[in-house]
């Protein structure tokens, strides 16, 4: 973490650490759903090494640009792709591991997200995510409150 650019750390909005259980190995292909400013993607890139691929998917061009700048500052190779987590721009069975951190809860089409994860993983591939879940159905006032989406 000490080697990661300050910009990536400052913009981090995850809720945990998906990396220990992702157990990424050199040479693997990893896909980060909602890669944001890139902190998890950079950690993944470091773990898969120059022979691997670290692909970040994000719909937000500003965050993709930030992630690219942070990767350059860290001296790491990443691929940043414009795409929604409900329609991943990645071929079938092409990914060894999917990671995500605090993003899937934001989707209104979670079933579709997991179908896509299943599609892009190779047989035997793995998923490691951290996210927030609710024991009760949230009220509409909470769902519609933009402050609660980002705090």
């Amino acid at each position, binding site marked *: 973490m000490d080697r990661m650019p300050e910009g990536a750390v400052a913009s981090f909005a995850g*809720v*945990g*650490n*998906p990396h220990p*259980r992702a157990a990424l190995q050199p040479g693997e292909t990893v896909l980060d759903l909602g890669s944001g400013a890139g902190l998890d993607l950079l950690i993944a890139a470091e773990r898969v090494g120059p022979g691997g691929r670290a692909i970040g998917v994000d719909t937000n061009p500003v965050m993709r640009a930030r992630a690219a700048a942070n990767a350059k500052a860290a001296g790491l190779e990443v691929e940043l792709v414009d795409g929604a987590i409900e329609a991943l721009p990645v071929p079938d069975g092409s990914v060894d591991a999917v990671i995500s951190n*605090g993003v*899937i*809860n934001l989707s209104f089409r*979670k*079933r579709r997200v*997991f*179908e896509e*994860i*299943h599609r892009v*993983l*190779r*047989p*035997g*591939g*793995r*998923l*490691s*995510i*951290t*996210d*927030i*879940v*609710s*024991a*009760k159905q*949230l009220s509409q006032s*909470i769902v519609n409150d933009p*402050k*609660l989406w980002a*705090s």
Partner: protein
Amino acid sequence: MFRLMEESGLTKVRSAVVAGFEFREASTRNAAEAYGVKAVMMTARKPEA
């Protein structure tokens, strides 16, 4: 999410609560507590062909 993961065909779905997680804003923390919102770590695998 756990059910959706299994229904998508993923197996070995496991979860654990992320210890020490809390929202930055006090108002969000209060709402989260009322609704049982927690941060969790989840893992799963796609079966071998």
